[in-house]
């Protein structure tokens, strides 16, 4: 049962209005219901306890026989239904939230188990003996022969005259989410934070300076650890494992981590199975230091005696010290908020799942914004948050409203450069958004003087805001159910999140720039170098990036016998980049103009910077870059900058170079100097088409040509190989064009006669072309496009520029005739004829629309074209491409671009490709349709009503109608035996146009291969070896494999072999070969013949392009399982069998092999079968 919001707690007008409205409506409706059924017995039961635990009113309409109204209408149900639709996004959304929260709740038995241990721990801590007023030497000697070391941070205290000591803790309490009861199950297990507050008498007023307090704390922790270790041993708690851990990656805050191993599982105190760990934090008493002295802009580490020089501020140090005083304080603050706002707890849980799925957390490494910061921000916004202190969130809000409010705040308010939010954690004073930011993300607590976002760097803030923006779009989506990407899907895969990553090594020891001032502001070299790289990136390539993340491979956990973790000499740094696709490949960086101050610009860019005059006459300091087929411009810039500013001989390593290198390079002038985004090759084809169009449209024919519409991959920039002049061996050499004439009533009303008239027109066109132009052309028979239509002819044209076109004619009669054929057919043949109609529709109508839409999309999403080409290459390398229509592949590949949901639109080939793979691997096509909105603006954020009304955005109705088409389809074919992939768009609402006719084993194989690929990447990353493996077919899965003769078709397919010694164009084919048929791939024809003669028995696969370096190709075969069993002989058996006994026969594999081998003749060079 759902608890409704209490009306009395609502202080905002809008909310109370809503509820009031719903209530009056409700009563009226119920009343009217009762009025109508006057014959019914009425019964008000105020204390019905069947399902009414809230004690609300419930109204029953008894169902009596003969009554008109058979539905019982429970007032409460209506109320819930109403409310959830208003307070939550929709009913279903609310129900899903409920289920999710139930699912992640901590199991009671586990909680009981850990609590038992926590009680014990509390008692044991009390036993630790006091140890007071010891000098550093005494401390050292005490620890000399013990197994524990004090985790002093750098610099270790030497020659200090203050005293160390251990006194009974002022307080031992559970803090953090476990204390607040917002803890949830998480895959990494949960840490229960126990705060041990040091007694105040151990400190002096000035201890916050120069690490003094920290060293005292470290000793306190070390002493506690050593004693606990002994006590645990005494108590026979042998399953316990102790280690030190830098809390949230902060090297100033070591804590003691207690884990349970699986030794001695019988001990009733062993909490190993709960997956919990306990952190013993050591805190300072609240308010022990003057917090004003520890403001972020103050210096508290005095490294120099010389008072003349102003010391830099030490914000990280200050925040660490202050944080240690406030563990208990913030628990109280959040607890108070929880008491006031009913659904605060649920909102925190939602926030927590949201953060977890995105890999965001409190530690510096995870971005510094975790569930504590989320909860604190929510609490602050419940007390205000607007510029006038107006409340952003209200106590009566539902969990969904609270969550959305926080996300919206993050997405729309800038807390870094434009302003900051300040709040009070001790009183109900209003929180205010104050204009004018500190250039660092700020959520400032006036009470404690802590900036709660002190671990959030500017770059991780950018990523956080980006996440929030994406989430807000999803939350506002009314068409699709977005619950899954919002909360259920893990979107923390680096290879999906970042367009690419760059890896490099630096050696801290050799870096002289890390001086004492840098040390006190940044505390560690990791922080220092990350900040330095971040600044270089922001200044140098900031406009080309949406965001970036810099991470170092440093561990935070170490043994209690060590003072600090051991680090290797080199520091490995990974930079994950989210690229802005519109800016990425721009070649010019413009700086200040001639007259402005240019010192910073010039010193930053060094010799690369130069003064240039641009077309518009301005003279500007600028830097010019050049494109490369493997390395993106951003990577080139990055390399230059890091070499200039970090280390001269730095080596950058990135998977993007490998992936870009996988794309076949067109045999065109200077193609190694072209960016992956280059459309030069496609433009050549397009120009040739335009030229042909101009000629065709002017032809004098009995009927004038109305349109010549492109319908080929090459003309929509998606062909596997880029179009290259005279590349006749490419399977995409001939580009389909659909010609339509002006309207006429004279077309024959019969299919074959109609085709003959079309042929007559084509003959006429050919005659004129060969007489009057330089175009070569010939008529070809086409018996593949539409089965059972044996009269189709096409006109194949070879243009003087070196491109091929294939013209087919569409009239207004065609569709009518195919549909009539369905009508006239007998019931049994209906399906076959429907499939014929779909085939016709594909080539003559669907493909034209598809080409129009895809080419506009390819312009909008620049990385779409290379991504599709790489995806096609992968499919072809895996021997799958031949089974799918190119259009289907292109539509599936569109998914991450038009519906990036929680990510950004892919801005690199590798990211686009991997996202497609990931999508297919997780696509349960038996239950989920793929419905795409092709109209979305790249941002998808413009939600103003006028725009959405004018645009052709997918409406709820259209979505529902496609969805219901899918439901109908699956009702007939629940297992997807006939049609697996339902891919619908506005131009094909049926969802099956491009996906019918795929054999089930092939569809299943695509899914399986994608899954394997994703597993491989998850396991072994994107290194050289796994990338190669990704593109290698596993032939062991097939029943037999034919190895074929080497046929060198790469160059005649327009591909520049990468091994070739020529860095540039191979001048081989600058004209058409004498006999074009010799350059066509014989294997394609062979497979076509084999497949048609063995259809239903063997599924053949091959690479659709023979372009491997050595020109090798293979054909694989898979027997259809249903034909493998012994069966009774009959004349209609339909496949090659041998007699077994009596009337029984079984498939004759040996004969099939022998016949295939004989048929393939001299093309075969090897054969293997299972």
């Amino acid at each position, binding site marked *: 049962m759902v608890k409704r919001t209490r009306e009395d707690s609502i202080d905002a007008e809008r909310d109370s209005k809503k509820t009031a409205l719903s209530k009056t409506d409700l009563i009226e409706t119920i009343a*009217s219901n009762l009025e109508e059924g006057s014959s019914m017995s009425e019964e008000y039961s105020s204390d019905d306890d069947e399902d009414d635990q809230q004690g609300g009113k419930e109204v029953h309409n008894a169902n009596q026989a003969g009554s008109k109204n058979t*539905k019982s*209408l429970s007032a409460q*149900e*209506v109320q*819930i239904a109403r409310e959830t639709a208003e307070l939550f996004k929709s*009913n279903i959304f609310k129900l899903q939230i409920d*289920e999710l929260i139930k699912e992640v709740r901590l199991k009671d038995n586990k909680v009981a188990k850990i609590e038992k241990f926590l009680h014990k721990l509390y008692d044991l801590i009390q036993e630790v003996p006091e140890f007071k007023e010891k000098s550093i030497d005494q401390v050292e000697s005490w620890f000399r022969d013990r197994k524990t070391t004090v985790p002093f941070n750098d610099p270790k205290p030497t020659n200090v005259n203050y005293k160390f000591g251990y006194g009974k803790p002022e307080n031992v309490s559970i803090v953090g989410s476990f204390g607040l009861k917002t803890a949830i199950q998480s895959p990494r297990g949960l840490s229960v934070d126990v705060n041990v507050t040091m007694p105040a008498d151990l400190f002096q007023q000035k201890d916050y300076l120069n690490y003094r307090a920290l060293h005292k704390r470290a000793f306190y922790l070390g002493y506690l650890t050593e004693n606990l270790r002994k006590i645990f041993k005494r108590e026979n708690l042998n399953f316990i494992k102790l280690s030190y851990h830098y809390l949230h990656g902060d090297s100033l805050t070591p804590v003691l981590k207690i884990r349970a191993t699986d030794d001695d599982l019988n001990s009733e105190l062993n909490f190993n199975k709960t997956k919990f760990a306990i952190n013993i934090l050591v805190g300072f008493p609240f308010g022990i230091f003057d917090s004003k002295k520890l403001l972020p802009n103050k210096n508290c580490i005095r490294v120099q005696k010389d008072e003349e020089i102003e010391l830099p501020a030490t914000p990280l140090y200050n925040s660490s010290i202050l944080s240690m005083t406030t563990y208990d304080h913030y628990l109280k603050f959040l607890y108070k908020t929880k008491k006031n706002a009913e659904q605060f707890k649920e909102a925190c849980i939602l926030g927590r*799942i949201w953060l*977890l*799925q995105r890999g965001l957390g409190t530690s510096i490494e995870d971005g510094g914004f975790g569930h504590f910061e989320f909860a604190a921000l929510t609490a602050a916004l419940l007390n205000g948050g607007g510029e006038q202190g107006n409340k952003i969130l209200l106590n009566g809000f539902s969990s969904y409203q609270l969550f959305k409010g926080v996300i919206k705040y993050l997405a729309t308010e800038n807390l870094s450069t434009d302003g900051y939010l300040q709040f009070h954690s001790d009183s109900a004073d209003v929180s205010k958004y104050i204009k004018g930011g500190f250039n660092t993300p700020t959520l400032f607590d006036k009470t404690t003087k802590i900036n709660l976002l002190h671990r959030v760097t500017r770059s991780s803030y950018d990523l956080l805001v980006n996440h929030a923006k994406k989430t807000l779009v999803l939350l506002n989506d009314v068409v699709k159910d977005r619950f*899954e990407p919002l909360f*259920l899907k*893990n979107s923390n895969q680096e290879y999906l999140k970042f367009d690419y990553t760059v890896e490099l090594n630096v050696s801290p020891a050799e870096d002289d720039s890390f001086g004492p001032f840098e040390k006190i502001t940044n505390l560690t070299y990791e922080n220092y170098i990350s900040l330095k790289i971040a600044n270089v990136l922001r200044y140098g390539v900031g406009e080309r990036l949406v965001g970036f993340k810099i991470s170092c491979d440093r561990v935070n956990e170490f043994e209690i016998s060590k003072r600090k973790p051991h680090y290797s000499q080199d520091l490995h740094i990974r930079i994950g980049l989210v690229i802005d696709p519109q800016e990425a490949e721009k070649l010019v960086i413009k700086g200040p103009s001639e007259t402005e101050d240019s010192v910073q610009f010039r010193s930053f860019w060094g010799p690369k910077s130069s003064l240039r005059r641009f077309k518009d006459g301005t003279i500007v300091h600028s830097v010019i870059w050049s494109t490369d087929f493997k390395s993106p411009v951003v990577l080139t810039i990055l390399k230059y900058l890091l070499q200039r500013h970090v280390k001269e001989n730095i080596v950058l390593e990135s998977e993007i170079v490998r992936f870009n290198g996988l794309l076949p390079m067109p045999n065109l002038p200077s193609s190694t100097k072209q960016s992956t985004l280059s459309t030069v090759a496609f433009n050549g084809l397009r120009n040739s088409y335009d030229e042909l169009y101009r000629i065709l449209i002017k032809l004098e024919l009995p009927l004038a040509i109305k349109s010549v519409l492109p319908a080929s991959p090459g003309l929509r920039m998606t062909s596997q190989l880029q179009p290259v002049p005279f590349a006749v061996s490419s399977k995409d050499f001939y580009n389909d064009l659909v010609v339509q004439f002006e309207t006429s009533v004279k077309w024959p009303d019969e*299919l*074959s*006669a109609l085709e003959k*008239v079309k*042929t*007559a027109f084509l003959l006429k066109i050919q005659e004129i072309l060969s007489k009057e132009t330089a175009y070569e052309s*010939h*008529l*070809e028979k086409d018996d593949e496009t539409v089965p*059972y239509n044996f009269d189709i*002819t096409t006109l194949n044209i070879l243009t003087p520029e070196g491109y091929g076109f294939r013209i087919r004619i569409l009239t207004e009669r065609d569709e009518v005739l195919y*549909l*009539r*054929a369905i*009508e*006239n057919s007998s019931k049994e*043949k209906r399906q*076959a004829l429907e499939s*014929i109609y779909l085939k016709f529709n594909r080539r003559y109508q669907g493909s034209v629309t598809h080409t129009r839409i895809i080419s506009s999309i390819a312009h909008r999403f620049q990385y779409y074209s290379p991504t599709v080409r790489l995806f096609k290459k992968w499919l072809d390398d895996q021997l799958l491409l031949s089974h799918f229509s190119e259009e289907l592949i292109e539509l599936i590949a569109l998914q991450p671009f038009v519906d990036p949901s929680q990510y950004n639109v892919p801005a690199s080939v590798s990211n686009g490709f991997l996202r497609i793979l990931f999508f297919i691997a997780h696509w349960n096509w038996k239950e989920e349709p793929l419905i795409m909105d092709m109209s979305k603006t790249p941002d998808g954020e413009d939600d103003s009503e006028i725009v959405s009304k004018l645009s052709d955005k997918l409406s709820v109705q*259209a979505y529902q*109608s496609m969805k*219901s088409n899918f439901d109908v389809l699956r009702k007939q074919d629940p297992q997807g035996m006939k049609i697996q992939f339902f891919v619908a768009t506005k131009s094909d609402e*049926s969802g099956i146009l491009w996906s019918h006719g795929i054999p089930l084993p092939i569809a299943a194989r695509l899914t399986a291969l994608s899954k394997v690929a994703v597993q491989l990447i998850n396991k072994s990353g994107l290194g050289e070896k796994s990338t190669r493996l990704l593109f290698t077919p596993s032939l062991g899965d097939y029943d037999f494999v034919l190895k074929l003769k080497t046929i060198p078709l790469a160059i005649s397919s327009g591909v520049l072999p990468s091994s070739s010694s020529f860095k540039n164009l191979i001048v081989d084919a600058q004209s058409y070969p004498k006999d074009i*048929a010799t350059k066509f791939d*014989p294997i394609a024809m*062979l497979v076509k013949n084999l497949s048609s*003669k063995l259809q239903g028995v063997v599924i053949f696969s091959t690479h659709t392009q023979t372009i491997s370096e050595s020109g090798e190709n293979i054909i694989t075969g898979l027997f259809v399982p249903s034909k493998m069993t012994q069966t009774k*002989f*009959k*004349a209609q*058996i*339909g*496949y090659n069998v041998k007699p077994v006994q009596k009337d029984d*026969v079984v498939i*004759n594999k*040996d*004969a099939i092999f*022998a*016949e*295939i081998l*004989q*048929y393939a*003749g*001299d*093309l075969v060079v090897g*054969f293997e079968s299972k």
Partner: protein
Amino acid sequence: MEEVKGFSVVPVELAQSQWNKKARHYMFIKKHQSNAMKEMAERSLFIVNPPFACTLSTIRQFFKSIASNSLVENLFINDEDLDYDINLTRLTSDLYDDDKDGQGSLVRLPNGTAIVVFVDKSACSLAMSKLKKYCKGDELYSWRVCGDETATSIRMAKAYRDRVLSPEETSAEVSLSLQEFEKREAKSIEELGEMKTLVDEDGFTMVVGKNRKTKRGILGKMSGTSKVKEIEDKKLKRKEKADFYRFQIREKKKLEMNELLKKFRDDQERIKELKEKKRFRPY
């Protein structure tokens, strides 16, 4: 084994190569029996499971070797799963009379079967008896799938070349078949004209219409149709005031409420389903 369900089992040998052993292919042959085209049927043999890519020339060679006197005249084969019931020309035209000659004079064969037509009845009988003899013997005929044809690579290139049509022949063929079509059409129009002028007993004349069909049946519900519906609905709504009487408002609200409740219950059902599928596990 010599016979299966009245078919003689006729093995032929497929030569070995460096990758595979010798293999046997089994044809199942009997005398053709059919009432259609009786004359031809009587001099034909019916073959189930002819060898891969069997052609007139390869089958001729086979019969030449075992019954040299039986001359093969023709071969009908269906090895590409052709469905003879699908004839787009007939299905799209009403110029053919269905009852006249059934579905044309074509031989209709199930997939994976063939008919060998001999020059005369006796040649056929002879071939059959020789076949039986051949089956009893030890010497197996060595079948070559491609016969004497050239290398596969050249054959495939030829297949590409064969797709190209000669303009002259095509043009001749086109004009011929269009003439035929026009003739058929003229005849049909004539007949139709007669029908139109015919006045039946009640004084009505026949109206001849074209049969059209929409896409709906195949492509599911298109939004086009639902849009039309929407517009119609809107028109209707505009005509009458929906909120004039109190009962109308009440009715409307009740409907809304029921709708809401129904949706709510559906949603609950869906959640249950999803829960069973363990969808709510976030990790």
